[in-house]
């Protein structure tokens, strides 16, 4: 089970994910974030992945989808604290060229 925690500060939304980010888990994350995007204007979306133990290309699809939405809304997105195995998937998918990963 993937746990989602949201923290909003001014126009920055930080989403903390905990657990395994696969196709099964993705739809709930997508819904949760997209609901926030329509609620209030955001300038930045931060995905904190420090507690994500697994991610496959379904996670890439989720991230690219949110990245595109943020761009449409004139905002930006960044990824924080991915573990080594998550970073491997992010890099291999070219996401590290699209957005800041720290």
């Amino acid at each position: 089970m993937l746990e989602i925690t949201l923290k909003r500060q001014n126009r920055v939304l930080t989403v903390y994910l905990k657990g395994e980010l696969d196709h099964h888990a993705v739809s709930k994350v997508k819904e949760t974030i997209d609901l926030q995007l329509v609620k209030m204007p955001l300038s930045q979306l931060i995905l904190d992945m420090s507690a994500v133990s697994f991610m496959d290309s379904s996670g890439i699809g989720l991230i690219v989808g949110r990245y595109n939405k943020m761009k449409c809304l004139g905002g930006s997105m960044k990824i924080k604290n991915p573990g080594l195995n998550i970073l491997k998937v992010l890099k291999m998918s070219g996401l590290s060229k699209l957005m800041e990963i720290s």
Partner: protein
Amino acid sequence: MQPINRMKIEFESKSVNESFARIVAAAFASQLDPTIEELADLKTAVSEAVTNAIIHGYEQQEGLIFMECILYEDSITVKITDHGVGIEDIEKARIPAFTSKPELERSGMGFSIMESFMDSLFIASEKGAGTKITMTKKFSKR
């Protein structure tokens, strides 16, 4: 080379079984004492193939997914089969970032990940009959 152990499993094409399939493959592979990174790579590749069977093969309808794992002295071969719609153009399907389901926010990186995280990847598929993925990963001697 002689296999030292093998198993076959079949399970329903439900997304909740994606993590189950990863655990099964990793638990079996752990008999070879792989490194944590090797095990993570295997789990990711299995997850990609099983997810594809669910989303593309069976288009999120009911169906059975078959997984076979064969252990050799220092490698594992994993075969993942569905009896779903099949792939029309395998060459095209393998192109990085190609996906037939962009509306589902698929990234089209599944086959690329399987290819890069495993040591070999074979795709056999027939339109209307199904798809069989055969992947092998070598584990470092320790």
